[in-house]
């Protein structure tokens, strides 16, 4: 077998490894129920804020703790704890993606990252007029 063919085969093998790896290491979009059934497993959960319940951020007591309630796409609600300051633009976002996990059946959802989906400024302007 020619050297060049071996190299090309090796590259193809590496590409397949990357492909499989990319799929395996990626997290999936899920809901709170699934996350609770798989404790310790990280998920992306898309939901909306429950603005009727309190969002708690008390920087004077603890600058690294923010709590709020999120309703997932199936309507299930959970309290989310985030150990960072309250993200900017949080109040304005209608859709929130939290990345994290449940550590126990009774515990709250521990988020390591929050992505905000804000209504774009174009839309915001139109509704304001």
């Amino acid at each position: 077998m020619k050297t060049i063919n071996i190299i090309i085969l090796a590259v193809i093998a590496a590409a397949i490894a990357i492909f499989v790896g990319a799929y395996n290491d990626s997290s999936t979009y899920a809901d709170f129920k699934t996350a609770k059934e798989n404790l310790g497993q990280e998920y992306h959960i898309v939901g909306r804020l429950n603005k009727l319940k309190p969002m708690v951020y008390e920087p004077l007591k603890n600058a690294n703790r923010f709590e709020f309630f999120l309703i997932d796409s199936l309507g299930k609600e959970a309290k989310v704890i985030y150990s960072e300051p309250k993200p900017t633009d949080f109040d304005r976002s209608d859709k929130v993606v939290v990345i994290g996990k449940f550590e126990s059946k009774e515990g709250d959802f521990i988020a390591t990252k929050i992505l905000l989906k804000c209504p774009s400024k174009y839309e915001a302007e139109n509704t304001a007029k």
Partner: protein
Amino acid sequence: MEVIYSGENLILGNVGHFFVALAFCAALLSAISYFISTNNKDDKGWKKLARTSFWIHALAVTGIFTTLFIIIYGHYFEYQYAWQHSSKSLPWYYMLSCFWEGQEGSFLLWMFWNAVIGILLIYTVKDWESPVLAVVCLTQIVLGSMLLGLDVGEIYKIGSSPFSLLREKMAANAPIFRTPDYLKQIVDGKGLNPLLQNYWMVIHPPTLFFGFATSIIPFAFAISGLWTGQYKAWLKPALPWTLVSVMVLGTGIIMGGFWAYESLSFGGYWAWDPVENASLVPWLLLIATVHLMLIYKSTGTSIILTYLFSIASFMLVLYATFLTRSGILGDSSVHSFTDLGLSGQLMIFMFIFYALPLFAMVKDKRQKIYLNLIYWSLFVANIVLGIVSKNAMYFSILKWMDIAMFAAISFWFVYKLYKTFPASKMEEDFKSRELWMFIGSLFLLLSAFQIILATSFPVINKLFGSSIAPPADAIEYYNFWQMPIAIVIAFLTGIGQYFKYKTSSFKVVGFQLIKTFAIAVVLSVACMFLFQIWTAYYLVLLLAGVYAIVGNINFMLTTLKGKLWLAGGSIAHIGFGLMLIGILVSSAKKQVISVNETVDYGKSMDDKAKRENMLLLKGDTVRMADYLVSYGSDTVIGPNTFYKVYYKGIGNSDEFFLWPNAQINNNQLNANPDTRHYLTHDVYTFVSNVPDKAKQNSEPWGEPKVHQVIIGDTIKTENGMVIFESIDKNAKPQQLRLNHQMLGANLKIVDGKHVYRTKPIFGIANDKSLYTIESVVDEAGLKFQFYIKAADAGVAAFIETSERPAIRDFIIMKAIVFPYINLLWGGVIVMVIGFALSIVKRTKEYRRSLEK
């Protein structure tokens, strides 16, 4: 009812529209003429026509640019673009940034660069002018269509014009537009996103877009090669241009990183955000393309991959454009554009260019007919169905047909390449330079593949209905693959050059390799102690970076004998090695110093939770690593609030102020960091939260409590102890020129370690009427009244206290030390110098080959 509007300047818009139409038509004419000229070489007339129309096109594009600038500069807010993206207070250089805040402006920028490139190509590429410019014109047609703003029927529009009027873009029945002189009510535009009001944002987008635009050159040459049947001659003129593309795009990307580091608060220069990735991937492929071109130039092999990479680089630029502008990244990226309704057009863009190489290559008449028939019927089906149908099943069938077509085009094209170019006869000797370069190029491809795959998850989800989420920890996810690849590439840059093309004597090479490796190991050990890196994996990366530097310096000294003009490649490699070390040390040894270890938050706090943000009360001093840090005050300048943070080194005389700032509007905080730069490290600081002062001030006061007191008494309140120290018998405030007697109660408030003093006043007017002047201590949340009145035993003093939550001025801040980050920036500069030298060298080579 028709309203006749007053005060609008419609001439500018009409001029703008005219230029847009002219640019589009001239590009169309030029493309057709160049097309005919390519197929009829001897007919000079078409070429002349094509050139003239390209010049008209280029001038028209400049006209669009100028008109739009006049509209923004003159604050013609009747135009949506000016209103949306600018304001009166904007300095002129930020008005340029207005262009790229909107999609139309950035398409325009791309077109402008393409026009510049086109003119340069016309006068430099000689025989290649017609086919290359035909391809350039095709992109100009497509880009130009993005600006047309033509309505086709009720629902579909072609492009989005930057010259639309505000009243056309907004809901037409908005109440404001019912008055003819609505313009008088529009006092100012919405203004430019404050994040873009940064000098890096004036030069980063044009540089990046110039890089994107130049990627058309290797693509256009490759297509021309296939089209004219001169399969190999294009590589020589294309090589220096491809290097230009690598240099400019690379500079543009890193400028973006530097901007992010200087003005965004995610704490770094690279976040593996899809938008960043989308620009990095074409760059990686362009570098691989350069190396493959060099292999071809010296050995005549690897032509197939050269074609594929030249074409793929531009395809990926198109794909990147689609990703960032179609809105598909909405969930996964922080800075992509929202969909402007152009996603359909962007898909057509990709659809056309994807088939172009195959169209250029198919010469057989019957094959041509088949290809055209299948391709164009599917093309029409896509457009018709996209506009007319809402039926999901049709869409699904069409989607699979499209996927099948894309696959078929790819296979057909690669098959044709294999048929045209007989099996690659590359030297497979491990002692040949081309083999190592080839392997390096493949590793660049792997790197690009991994990044684009992970970035494309939203696209994959949309196509196949899956629900793969982007990686939770992007940095860890990408580094897992990118780090080993970077290690291999860095070693290859050092090793590869010692081998000669075709084959070399192992004795000579072996000696140099052992020598450089030994030096690199020694230096790496020194670096290990200097940088305090003890992780084995990181040490391998460190060694790879050091080796890239040592290997290339040694190559320059021994083989090139220090001739800098020839050493472009080696210098670029050295830059890469420096960058790698800079990236490694600044991220692996990055230290968040704003960690509060002393405060115990109790059990409720998760042990593992991060404590990377610190509370700084005004006036307090807190220790952060080797600094004592305090927050002084805030100052509002324009839209920004600046927070004065004072750093004092412990055990040394180092002291400085940082002014991290933030824009606060609608209760939202948009923080920008401030950084203290040292040669060996940076201290990076931003505020992650600040109190809402307006809200605090509107808190209601609690019920007043009355206390009968004598001097020396202490009143206990929720917010602290109040000590009634003495009475000031002449407590007249200076601004009151009243001839009354006024008594003041000297009060001392002790709240933890804070002490405040205040003096409520009791006054007796000349007519014997009594009154009080209250005093407020916001920081303690206390309000006082003081009076004297009859009591059980004669007269007594009374103090009335009201409480509310204390108003605390504070910031929550995060501070990070990035060690040796200057190695990264320095490495980039060295790399760019290397590219520049290579461009000069390869251009000279090309000129010399022309003279022969």
